[in-house]
């Protein structure tokens, strides 16, 4: 059962300050309404994983790692590799993360990141087939939220795409129906570089890349993932509240522009990563 979430209480003075600043086009941390926090990407952070990246977006810190295996393909896609995204809201990251089975927040985060990657076709799953109907590569993307200061979605998409961009897959030789792992690797080629843009809404005002306090004080958020060709591949409204159709359409152009900007920063290290 999905239950109305219990948000920490934000004091009235903090809320008033936030709204006062919004009216002047400012934010508590000094950013502009459509300005991202500092983004720092570190590739190949986990050597034991076939691909990995540590992403810091302000104080939000997320580690993404890709483990590669060989598996039986799904019956309806015998020629395609398997991609699975999982998100762990690690208890050490926040007092609101609790150990136990995955929360709806972690499930919906993982599913959104999965959609962003899958629908953008960033990974060409048909290139991950070894023997049709029998052996395909499986890519497990595990997202580890290490420090939580809001906007997990955008940071998670950036971390996952970077981790996939560094992924090296072992080569296999095929003899009849059996395969043998070789001591050679090839790089996973990314066909697209999707970025997600998340907005937090406060009445008729909104900001991009909300920090945690802004998320708690907001009415709801909307995330949109933009592909390299400026088309959209995932959208989701999270939280209660409502947006007018006109308000929603206004976000499309903004997301395309912000997406271009963010993409060039977020994936700048990938081109140099041979």
């Amino acid at each position, binding site marked *: 059962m*999905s239950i109305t979430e219990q948000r920490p209480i934000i004091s009235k003075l903090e809320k008033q300050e936030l709204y006062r600043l919004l009216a002047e086009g400012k934010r508590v941390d000094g950013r502009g309404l459509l300005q991202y926090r500092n983004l720092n990407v570190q590739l190949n952070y986990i050597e034991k994983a076939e691909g990995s990246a540590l992403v810091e977006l302000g104080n939000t810190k997320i580690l993404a790692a890709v483990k590669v295996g060989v598996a039986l393909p799904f019956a309806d896609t015998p020629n395609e590799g398997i991609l699975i995204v999982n998100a762990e809201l690690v208890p050490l990251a926040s007092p609101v993360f609790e150990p136990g089975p995955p929360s709806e927040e972690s499930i919906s985060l993982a599913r959104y990141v999965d959609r962003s990657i899958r629908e953008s076709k960033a990974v060409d799953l048909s290139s991950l087939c070894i023997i049709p109907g029998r052996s395909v590569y499986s890519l497990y993307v595990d997202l580890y939220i290490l420090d939580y200061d809001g906007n997990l979605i955008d940071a998670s998409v950036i971390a996952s795409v970077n981790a996939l961009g560094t992924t090296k897959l072992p080569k296999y030789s095929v003899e009849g129906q059996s395969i043998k792992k070789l001591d050679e690797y090839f790089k996973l080629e990314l066909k697209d570089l999707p970025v997600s843009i998340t907005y937090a809404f406060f009445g008729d005002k909104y900001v991009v890349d909300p920090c945690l306090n802004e998320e708690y004080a907001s009415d709801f958020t909307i995330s949109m993932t933009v592909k390299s060709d400026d088309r959209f591949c995932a959208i989701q*409204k999270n939280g209660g509240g409502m947006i007018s159709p006109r308000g929603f359409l206004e976000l499309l152009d903004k997301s395309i522009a912000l997406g271009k900007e963010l993409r060039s920063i977020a994936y700048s290290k990938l081109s140099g990563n041979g």
Partner: protein
Amino acid sequence: MSEKISLFKEDGRRLDDRAPDELRPIKIKVGVLSNAQGSAYIEQGKNKILAAVYGPKEALPKHISLPDRCILRCRYHMAPFSTPERKSPAPSRREIELSMVIRNALEPLVMTSLFPRTVIDIFIEVLQADGGTRCAGLTAAVLALADAGIPLKGLTAACAVGKADGKVIVDLNDLEDKYGEADMPIAYNPTLDGITLLQMDGIMSKEEIEQALSLAITATQKIHKMQVEALKERFSVPRREG
């Protein structure tokens, strides 16, 4: 999408003979269960969905309650026999996410501040699935809430729009959902001119999203009319003989 299948016939109509902007046949009935405070049943194409509401009632255990408003608990669930392959009755990750987005869509509708410290339970049970179940389920859940006598800021209707074979279409069936290029479920409240549920999955350009949204507003307005009729039908008195 391993094989390419065509979702349009040569005459430009869809495989189930609909125009791109045409809804499937919809049947709605309110007040269908005896135990629930409120209930509704919807058929949309081959979808068959029941929704029930219990409450408001005291929120127990107490720590889940909120001091200034009512909380909502929502479960979207698919019956094991609702899909071609048997679905495990345990809640899947998809069902957990949909329970959440449906709850998020209902929160701004219910006048929760009238009933502090209470809880309203909303159950959506998909008996047969044919694409667009979250939307049809939400359309029914809103009616179950109204049937329960819970004060609402209007009625919200939901419908998916999307894209198949390069064309923007409304109310995707299972086939179009699976093999189409994009699916964008939307819930819209015409009283408040607000979108309360918004998701998109697949690839659409800005122009296609604009076009799809305008189709969604028209479609949800049509479904909203059916909601109003179904509610009035439920509470109107059959003509007495004599």
